[in-house]
């Protein structure tokens, strides 16, 4: 019988991986860039948060906890910024047509 | 099969794939990508030599690891220089590849420097 922390870790990481899987299915199956962005950013952030939550009991020092949570926050920040940039390239906020030469979605 | 052997075979396959891309792609930037693939395959071969040398409480022999780190940095510098050369070639002659122009083809657009 594994200790409680290990069971919690396995459960949280598995749940997080399921969210990542859902996000990837959304990336592959949604019709256009904006909906795919939605799937990627929402599902991946939640998935990463669950994985980090699952890993917290495995680390004993408070500095390690801060490090893990910092990883999650930085990934959130990066994901939010990139989501804004990609969405802005597809549909610019001021209504001008999307720039030529941008990569296809 | 230990993980060292598995990833060593992976590295061998990467060198082969990169070599194929280097030979068969007409564009210079694709060749640079393929060359980086070859480089990473070679570094993986160093890495498995390091893994198999694990002893004295270390996870791997540190000397090949240090060689790979040096190699990665130098490979980046070489890639930066190669990419700049490709961009300059495109700026001065409009071509993105190194194949000689065949006779009867229109010359690539020439852009003069301002």
């Amino acid at each position: 019988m594994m200790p409680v922390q290990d069971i919690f870790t396995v459960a949280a990481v598995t749940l997080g991986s399921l969210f990542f899987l859902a996000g990837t299915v959304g990336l592959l199956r949604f019709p256009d860039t904006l909906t795919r962005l939605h799937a990627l950013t929402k599902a991946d952030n939640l998935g990463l948060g669950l994985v980090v939550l699952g890993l917290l009991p495995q680390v004993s020092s408070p500095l390690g906890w801060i490090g893990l949570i910092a990883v999650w926050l930085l990934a959130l920040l990066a994901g939010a910024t990139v989501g804004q940039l990609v969405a802005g390239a597809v549909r610019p906020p001021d209504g001008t047509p999307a720039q030529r030469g941008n990569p296809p979605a | 099969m230990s993980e060292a052997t598995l990833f060593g075979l992976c590295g061998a396959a990467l060198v082969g794939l990169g070599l194929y891309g280097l030979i068969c792609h007409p564009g210079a930037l694709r060749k640079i990508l393929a060359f980086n693939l070859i480089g990473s395959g070679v570094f993986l071969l160093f890495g498995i030599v390091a893994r198999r040398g694990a002893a004295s409480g270390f996870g791997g022999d540190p000397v090949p690891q240090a060689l790979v780190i040096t190699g990665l940095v130098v490979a980046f510098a070489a890639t930066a220089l190669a990419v700049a050369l490709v961009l300059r070639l495109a700026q001065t002659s409009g071509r993105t590849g190194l194949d000689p122009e065949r006779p009867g083809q229109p010359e690539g657009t020439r852009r003069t420097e301002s």
Partner: protein
Amino acid sequence: MSLTAPVDLGLALLLLGLAVWVIAASATYRAAEGFIAYGLVLALVWVRLGSVDVALTEAALGSGLTGLLLLRAAARLPPADPAERARPAKGVRVLAGLLCAVVTAGLAAVVLLLPEPAPTLAPAAAASLPATGVGNPVTGVLLAYRAVDTLGESIVLVLALIGLWSLAPDAAWGGRPGALTTAPAGSALRFLAQVLPPFGILVGIHLLWVGADHPGGKFQGATVLAAMWVLVIIAGLRRPPPVTSRATRWLVVVGSLIFVGIGAAGIWLAEAFLAYPDGLAKPLILAIEAALTLSVAVILGLLLAGPPEAERPTERRS
């Protein structure tokens, strides 16, 4: 071991699949995207092989900075005309495939026939590590046992930068590098470039400091610092320095100069080039690392910024 075998197999298959994508993708931009993902999976493979320092370097430099370089180049290149894009004839491709299969088979044979038990320098490295004062054996190799390699590498970086700058057209000499275009004002990128660099600089210095005893080191730290600088330039908050700027040139060479200086001092104080006197090894190593981190960060940023371009009256971006 049996529990991790499926993970290793999955990683290897993913790696090979991404490599096939990089080779087989039709658009160069797609291939560059695939290369970034390939680099990150490769970093995971390096962790599985127990080389965490190499994994950090691969993720930061091999995947991150190289990917940025290739993506920008793919976006800036003009589309090739169809005659130029013609692949070689079928016969050539079959021959090339055969050649590559032979090369792969040869390397695979080398891998499978490696001597058992494996020769290793780990005991020799471990025996002398306490004298250097560092706990991370890779840092010990890089800065103590094979310091001359690291010195050569830092000089190679300076030479690569000189080669890059020499590609500028004559009229553009003295201008600022132009390969990093700026984003329009008010975009999310400006916000990121204002919020992230303080943390990024902390992380970079931490990577440098912790590399003495744990995985990390100056190249990884320098890459993070360079990435923060490049982020600030791309967001338009700062312009890259002109190539004639003396301060930038001093920053570029100070790492190599201090390295050579300490090495030459070793000839008098410790009987050999790059030998450290007893008891002074750790402070000297830290001094070299600090100077090199600064120089390498500046050089990496300038390598990404590209050759100088002539100043134009209106800021252009198509």
